[in-house]
Structures are given as C-alpha cells and as structure tokens.
C-alpha cells in the first residue's frame, strides 16, 4: 500500500493575529491611542485662545489670563506625555507593543 500523499503546494500556516487580546495588551493599545490623541488635543486646546479676540475698549482679555491658560494646557500635555512614558516603561521588555503600528 502507498502512504497517503503529502498535500503538495499548500501554503505554510501564517501566524495570524488574534482577534481578541489579553486584557493587558488591550489596555496597552488603548494607552497608545491616548498617546496618539494627545497632540491633537493639544492643538485643539491651543486654538481656543484665538476665539477670545475682544473688540473695543474693556472687552479685551488681559494677557495674564492667556498666559495662565496656555501654560496650564502646556503642563497638561507634559503630564499626559509623562504618564504615558511611565506606562510605556513598564512594558519596556515587551517586543510586541513596540512593533505594533
């Protein structure tokens, strides 16, 4: 009797990405989403002062308000980036989080 023939020409199995991730990886990806959204948030918040242009005497915004606002937004962005940096350090050894786009 002949041995059953090999399945010639069939494609080698490809490593497919799992549809659902572990809780940890899922959190990680959402964190990356935050990191991506952070600059957009910054742009939006920094555009807000442009709406403040008061016309005429007494209606103008004092510059101290603007300074406080801009520096507050700035500090917020730094805080966000810092927290993300700390979180990113915790998964430092993990290659997968690094390679995902």
């Amino acid at each position, binding site marked *: 009797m002949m041995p059953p023939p090999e399945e*010639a*020409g069939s494609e080698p199995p490809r490593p497919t990405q799992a549809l659902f991730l572990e809780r940890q990886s899922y959190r990680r990806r959402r964190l990356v989403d935050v990191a991506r959204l952070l600059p957009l948030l*910054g*742009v939006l918040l920094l555009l807000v*002062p442009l709406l403040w242009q008061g016309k005429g005497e007494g209606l103008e915004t004092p510059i101290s308000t603007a*300074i406080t606002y801009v520096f507050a937004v700035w500090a917020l962005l730094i805080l966000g980036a810092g927290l993300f940096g700390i979180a990113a350090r915790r998964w430092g050894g993990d290659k997968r989080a690094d390679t995902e786009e």
Partner: protein
Amino acid sequence: MTSVNLLILVCIGYVALLFGVAFIADRMAARGRSTWLRSPLVYTLSLSIYCTAWTFYGAVGYAARSGLEFITIYLGPTLVMVGWWWGLRKLVRIGRSQRVTSIADLISSRYGKSTFLAICVTLLAVISITPYIALQLQSITLSFEIFFAADPGSGFSAGSSVFWVAAGLAVFAILFGTRNLDVNERHHGVVTAIALEAVVKLVALLAVGIFVVWGLSGGVSQTMARIDASEIGTWQVDAGRWTTITFLAAAAFVCLPRMFQVMVVENDDERHLRTAAWAFPTYLLLMSLFVVPIAAVGLEIMPEGSNPDLFVLTLPLSQGQDGLAMLAFLGGFSSATSMVIVAAMALSTMVSNHIVMPIWLSSRGGGASQSGDVRKVVLMSRRLTIGAIMALGYFYYHLSGGGAALAAIGLIAFAGIAQILPALVGGLFWRGATRTGALAGLVTGFVLWLYTMLLPGMGNIMSEEFLALGPFGISWLRPQALFGITGLDPMVHSVMWSMILNATVFSVASLLSFPSPLERLQGAQFVNVFDHSAGPRGWTGSVAQSEDLMIMSQRILGANEAQAFFQVEARKQGADGHLPEPTPAFLERLERELSGSVGAATAHAMIGQIVGGSSVSVEDLLAVADESAQMLEYSSQLEIKSSELSRTARQLREANDKLMQISHQKDAFLDQVSHELRTPMTSIRAFSEILRDTDGLKPSEKVRYATIINNEALRLTRLLDDLLDLSVLESGQVSLDMRSGILAEVLDHAVSSALSGEAAPLQVRRLPASENVALLSDLDRLAQVFINLISNAQKYCDAFDPVLQIDVHQRDGFLVIDFIDNGSGIAADTQALVFEKFARVSNDKAGGAGLGLAVCREIMHRLGGDVRYLEGQAGGAFRVTLPSRQSSHQPSRQTTAAK
C-alpha cells in the same frame, strides 16, 4: 561695572570648560565607561539646541513687540514631542536601522539613494541655515557690545569680535565634531558639552526671571498686574500667525539639520524618546516661563528706544546686578555656540557626504578601489566645510550689516527648512512617494520660499516698486500677494503658498511618476520599518572582490575596525580566513557600515564601483519573479501528480479488494463443486453397487435404482454443460443464431418454461402492449437469460405472496426489460458479486451451481446488450438491455467474425 577683561576671561574660561567636558566625555565613550553619557537626561538636554540665541534673547524682544505670539515657537516642538509615538519614534527607528547620517541622507536614502536629491536638500539646508548662523554671531556680538559700551576704553570693534567668535566656534566644531569618523556618526563629547550648555542657559534665564519677578516686581500677582498694565497687556494675537508659526516651529523642529543630528543621529537608545517626550516640553516651558515678565518689566523700566532683544542682559545691568548679567551673558553665549557648533557639524556632514565625496569619487574615475585613505579625505572635507560654513555666516553678517534685517531671519530659516517636510513625511508614511515627486515638491517649495520670503526679507534686493506692482507689472505675481490675494500677513502668505504648492506638486508628481525598484524597496523599508528589520537585498556579489572591498573599507572605517568587521563576517559565514565571501547579505551590512561614515548614497556608489554596479535592476526583479512563478508551476504540477497517484492507489486498493473477494469465492466454489459433484456421484456409486451386488432385486426396484442413477447422471451433465457453456461464451467461440421475432413470444416461452412444474409459481405481471416489439437476436439464448432471471425470482423471492413485475420500454436506442420482484432484494455488498461465476446470494438456499447469472451476462454481452442489477427498487430487480432492431445487426457480424 564688569570690566571687559573679566568678561573675556570668563568667556575663555567657559570655553575651556566646554573643551574639557567634551574631551573627557570622548575619552569615557572611547573606554566604554559612558553609561551616564547615554542617559535620557543628556539626550533631552542635547535637544535644547533648539533654543538658540534667537530664542534666548530674541524671545523677550519678540514678546515685547507682539505679546504672547513668541510662545508658538515653543508650542510647535512641544506638540511634536508629545506626539512622539506617531512620528519621532518612526523617524528614530529608521535613522538607527538605516544608519542615517543627516536629514539629506535620510531623504536620499528613502528615495532610492539618490545623490541628486541629497544635493538639493543639502543646498536648501545650507542656504537657510547660513543666515541663521549669522544671526547667532550677531547676538554674541551685540551682547559683547553691551559690555564694551559700558567700558569705553577697550577699543571695541564689532567686526573683529565677530571674526574671532566665528573662528573660535569653527575650531571647537572641528576639534570635536570631526575628531573621529564614527560608524554611527555619534559625538559624545559634543553632545555632553551641549547638555552642559543647556543647563547653563536654562539656569541663566530662570535666574534673570526670578530676579525680575521676585526681585523687581515683588511676587507673582504684582508681576501679573504689571504685565496687564504694560503695552502688551491685552490678548491680541493674529490667528493666522499663531497657527502658522506653531506649524513652522513643529516642522522645523523635525527638519532642521542640527535637530535631526541630535534627535536621530546622536540617539543612543530609542527609549530615550519616552523620557524626552515630557522632559523636553518641560524644558521649553521653563525657558519661556519668565519671558513675558522680563519683557513687560523691561518695557516699563528701561529707557525709551533701548533694544528689547537684549533686555535679558540690560535689565540686570541697569539694576547693578553684574553677576546676574554675567550669567545671562553666558546663557546667551551658550545658546549661540551650541547651535553654531551642531549646525556646522550637521551641515558639514551633509556637504561632505553628498557634495564633496561624490565629486571626489567621480573625479578619481574608478577611485574607490585605488589606494589612499578615504577617511582622511572625508575628515578633511568636513573640516573645510565647517570652516566654509562659518565663513559664509560671517560674510552674511557683514553683507547684511548686522542690522534689524537679521531679526526676522529665524522664521525665514524655519520656513525654508520646512520645505523638506512634505518629502520627509510622505517618505515615512506613504509608499507611493517617489523621487520625482520629492524633487519636484522640494524645488517648488524652495523657489516659492526664495521668491516670497527670503528675497523680500533681505531688504535691499527687491525694490518697493517691485513688491507693490510685481515683476513687469504683473500684479498676480507680486511676491507678497501671489495670485492677487492680498491682505495676508507676508509670513503667513509665504508659508501657506509654499507649503500648499510644495505638498501638492509632491503628491501629484509622485502619483504620476513611477519609482525605480531600489526606491520601491527603500520605500517599503521606511514605511513599514516596524515590520522589517532587514535591508533590501541590494547586491549580487558574484563579481565583487572581497579584497577590493577590504581595501576600500579600511580606508573608510579604519584598518582595525574594518578588519574586525570582516573577520566577524567571515566567522558568520563559517570561514576561517579574514575575507568573507561577498554574499548579498554581507555586502548589504557592509554598505550600511560605510553609510554610517559617508552617507547612504556615497556608500552605495562606492560598493557599486567595486561590485560592478550590479545593484538591483528591473531584470533582476523580473528574474526573481520568473523563478518564483516557475516554482509555483512546478509545485502545482507536483500537486496534480500526487493527486493522480492517490487516485491510482485508491483504484488499486479497490481492485485488490475485489481480487481477494473473488479468490475467496473461488475457494468457496471449489468446495461447492466438489460437493455438487460428490452428491450425485455418491448416489450413482451406491445404487450401481446395489444393482451389481444384490441378487433377487425386483424389476420395479431395478428400474427405480436405474432411474435414480440416470437422474443423477443428468444432473452432472447439466452442471458440466453449464460450465462448458460459460467457458465457450467467455472465450468468444459461441455461435449465435440470429433470428427475427417478437419480444412477447420470447417472454411467454420463458415464463412458461421457468414456472412449469413449480408447486407454487409466483405471480407474473406484464404489460402486453409494451411487449409487442420486434427483435433481431438469438431468441433461444435470450429466452435462456429470461428463464434464468424468472427462476431466480421464483427461487429467491422471500415475499409471502411473491410477485414478479416485467416492464419493457425503449430508451436511447436500447430495449430495456426490467424484472422486479417484491422480495427483499440483494444486499448492497453482494450486488457486485452476483454476476461473478459460482456466486450465490445466500448459502441457505442452495440451488444451482451459481453459474446462471454469469452465463446470462456473457450471453447478453454477446448479444450487444447487458444485464445488471437495478438498485433502488422495491425488491430484487434486474435490468436487461438489448439493442433495438435498427442497430442489432452489429453483434451478429461480430459473432460471425468470431466463428
């Protein structure tokens, strides 16, 4: 008042300190004891060369003129750093994996290692950065001037001080920027010195700020009140300028050669980015924290007409704070020197790699493999370039007269360098970006920037009339109102048009052109840098000579480094010697090593010269594609063959099973035959012995015994006849008696013969109308078949009230006669066997010898028809097919031939 001599002494001391730090850092790096040199902190601080003298002094002046608008210069980089996961991470990864040496190298490498593109980017960078360097020289000179003005006896000359400053910076840059030709193009000494300078300028600005807020104004709230009360006390910002400058600063932060140098090239570890992502914005925040207070207080305190650009310096001086003023001076000095040193280094790398080296290589003909140390040439060209760039900056300063025209040069430089952005971003994120597109976009942006920003900004080149009416009076070509759109701020106008048209031309030209294979490979490498780590298979090293490569590499990498590299490679290939085989993988790694020293395009060209230019060509790619197509075809052929084989194997298995079954049948039949033969023989022998040996038998007894003997003999004869019949039929030596007749008559005859003498004949149902068919056949043989089938039904039908249905119909030129009984039929596994010789359906109803159906089938084959078991009927069913009259002459001829 501080004496000028002390100032000069402090300056020289400070520079000596920087030299010392750079020297020690280089030493430590060389000994491998430089862990803290590679810390994220040093990386972050080195990024601070973004803050030049323009931002150190100029930010206050800017704030004094336009309020909070200055802050956009810092907000742009903050946004880029905060969004590092999107852009910088990729940029740094590519820079490290491709051994990129400069922004021009990156662009050229991305677009197929194009030398021409690299030259264009280099020229653009030199043209936009030279005025910027002049600006730094000016700021140092101005700060000197402040001190000299207070000390009239010193014999100060602005011109000579600028010269000495430029010369000193050039020496520093040459000493530490071109000491070694590192494979990774990293300069630990310079970077460390810059980090120190970063600390100095931050401390200086913070000190002045703290003095102004708490020393002069008495606290935060009073300062805020003072600011609100000052000239810049209301929030008035041009929305266009606000957004445009933020964008420009962000773009320049990535594209400026010096920023690229510290951010990508000098990067030791990609993970530093995540620290720098928050630390650098914090640095920028601190740098700008006290700018507005200093400006507001300066405007209030300082006399009318004093230069707000120098408030940082003049404010402490006016309050008698000489020490603080000295610190502020050092801060400004640091800002200017660090920028100039790194910018000169970065530009010199670009110029020497992309302009000098290609020219030198081509001027030497087949140069790469000739003797001579290329390293010396590279280093010398870099040194000369640094000198040339500083000289350019110096002359630019002189030509522009060092006046107010320089003040605006910072933004002009930003706008110029930002023209690289579309090609850079497109190259990183869009695989469809091509060399043609990058070139076209770059040139478009550059020309527009030149026409709408640089030339009008230089004051005396374009006349008022030209600006107001446009060239030759064509109003829609006015440099500051292109296409007739007026009312825009000139800076916004220029940036908007140049960036929009640059990006548009880049995209359209990319879409319309077709990239070369190398470009496409590099494109895939860059865009999907997180998926690929290997480089493109660029070289086919069949003709490359390892020795030539060795000679060339020694001259670029240095003898020891090159030998070590080659040895490692040889060991990787499993060879004992020092020279590895020129495999594509080895050549690719070698090219990357070399590109760390001389740039991607030059390294590519040098290896190309030795390997014989056998880089990837379309033909190679086609050959590869062809090969894989052949492989595919071969494998599909294999697949077909293997399925054929498996089919054959299955058939063989079936045949084998059948053979085994038949063999078993034969054995069983031999038993049967011997039994069949023995039974009559036994009775014949017994009765013949009785007749022979027994005396006094009655005549009636003799007759009875003789009849038994006769019957048994007849039975034997019948059996033998059947066997003979079958063998005759099978051997084809049968004679057929072809006659015309009617089917109904044959059936009548068959039914009556089969059922005659039966005690309980089964009921036969027929349709006489359908049986009235004319036949041309051997009617006796046909009747024999029918008789066999009917008597089989009689014998084996196990129904309580057995009925045989005989159906006749015509189909496809054949006459079909079905014999269907109402018994339980034949089991599926034995259906295939019933027509075999000696087969019997069941052993419990022993009748004939099991030859009947076999004979029937042979007869029907002879008659040109067939008999087979009909599945799926209510009971046992047989179908006899017979050629109709029209075509029935054929078998007769056949049999005649067989006679």
